């Protein structure tokens, strides 16, 4: 099976977030970027496992500029066979999906794995858009996947539980926690990654449908009010009378 894993670059989870140019742009200064955890830990690792047991290859794809090559090399070090970078600005979810769809139309994979969301813009939008552009099924937030006799059984997270479904033929999934266990790249993987093919292709021209006009940071908390551990009646009173949440 040939699996395409779409990977993105996000600020490290401990990053302190700030903005520039009148709060219209993310301030990347001093930020360490990482491979988006959902893409790396779950989507990529499950794709590698499937290919390790059933044959085929894993291609990783990213849309972005050359500064993204470091997260692409990380994915190759973890075991992906080859990589594609669509050289362009991932301006909004549609732009990304449109470009990935155009690539897939030239080289249709058997399955396409994405992360559940990017931890910066928290969209969960690229997957469903890509599936629609390719006119194939989409299964969201998959935390378990098995294959037998040409069909795939997937378990997806829904409110308050899970749903298990079956799909035949190519599909797009978004990966959630549980789909696989995080792997750490080893020295051999890191060395081999340097020689694996990374194809750079031009992006389509297009305009973003959604633009960010202003970022804001949440108002700082006015400070914690401490309540004595011996006086829980007082805490209940505060929650009821002042905070009005119970």
């Amino acid at each position: 099976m040939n699996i395409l894993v779409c990977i993105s670059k996000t600020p490290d989870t401990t990053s302190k977030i700030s903005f520039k140019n009148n709060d219209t742009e993310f301030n990347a200064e001093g930020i360490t970027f990482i491979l988006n955890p959902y893409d790396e830990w779950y989507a990529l690792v499950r794709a590698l496992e499937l290919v390790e047991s059933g044959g085929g290859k894993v291609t990783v794809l990213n849309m972005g500029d050359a500064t993204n090559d470091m997260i692409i090399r990380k994915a190759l070090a973890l075991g992906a066979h080859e990589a594609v970078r669509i050289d362009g600005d991932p301006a909004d979810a549609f732009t990304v999906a449109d470009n990935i769809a155009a690539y897939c139309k030239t080289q249709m994979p058997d399955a396409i794995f994405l992360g559940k969301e990017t931890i910066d813009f928290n969209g969960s939008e690229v997957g469903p858009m890509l599936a629609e552009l390719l006119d194939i099924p989409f299964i969201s937030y998959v935390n378990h996947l098995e294959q037998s006799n040409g069909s795939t059984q997937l378990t997806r997270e829904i409110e308050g539980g899970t749903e298990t479904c079956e799909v035949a033929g190519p599909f797009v999934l978004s990966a959630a926690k549980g789909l696989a266990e995080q792997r750490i790249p080893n020295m051999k993987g890191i060395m081999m990654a340097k020689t694996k093919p990374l194809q750079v292709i031009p992006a389509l021209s297009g305009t973003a449908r959604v633009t960010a006009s202003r970022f804001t940071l949440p108002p700082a908390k006015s400070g914690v009010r401490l309540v004595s551990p011996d006086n829980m009646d007082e805490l209940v009173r505060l929650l009821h009378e002042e905070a009005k949440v119970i």
Partner: protein
Amino acid sequence: MSVLVYIESPEGKIKKSGHEVATYAAKTAQILGTEAIGLLIGQAENAAQLGEYGLGRILQIHPSENPDFDAKSWAKLISEVALAQNASVVILTHSANGKSMAGRIAVRLEAGCISGASSLPDPGTSFAVSKSVFSGKAKVNYQIQTSTKVISLMGNTLQPEKTGGPGTVEVLDKKLDTPSVKVVSRQTSTGIVPLPEAELVVSAGRGLKGPENWGIIEDLAQSLGATTACSRPVADSGWRPHHEHVGQTGVAIRPNLYIAAGISGAIQHLAGVNNSKVIVVINKDPEAPFFKAADFGVIGDAFEVVPRLTAAIRKFKQG
């Protein structure tokens, strides 16, 4: 022109999140000076009551069945209704199913899409909607540049508001396509409000020492009618089920009240909970970073404080 809102009716029941999107759609329609139309797929108890939230008309497809969900065929059907109703805005719940369809519908309608919106559109300059980004560490105002817009609404963004009497339900003679995936089974816990929808959440971390100690957390949750949650290491160690893990890599929640016992308040944990309206932190370490993000704090041993709080709540509830 119109605003079309798809209202989920899992197992034939419309939930509070359904009333929230109905209210949101009615208010959006008012801002745009047009009408809000509700759409149901499958059975729905008390469908006409949706009119009370300000929906001018309620359309229903497959009124006597409970069809299984499939993003592809459902999104196609909703898009077709949107086109037939000349909808300029399509609104969905930001749920597992809503998220799976928003992007698909946006592609079909050549629309811009905002998932997880947390404000009404600002009609001022351009259609601007805000949402939480960077896992709750910031907010952004997005402008949608296309004439048709697709929005999925974050839960607890606004309270359902009744403004009128019941509406009339019109059954549409349309059908879902053959599904592209086959649902084999569904496992849901009944009776407990799922975390993303919960208004009250009681959560605990490694400070609780082991799964055998969760009884006091469950008692507190029960006294409030709250849903339980946990920090990541707790789920990773198998002390609690994965779906209870909140934070940057777990579920992001925005309840009215979040009570955290024995959780240090690491930045990745805060990322999933800092949109809570009120945060109460119980920790024996006065230096725990969580106190900086809390509204109310109790410095003390969770094993003593939590049962005391439960007793105080029971006493308060009895009145």
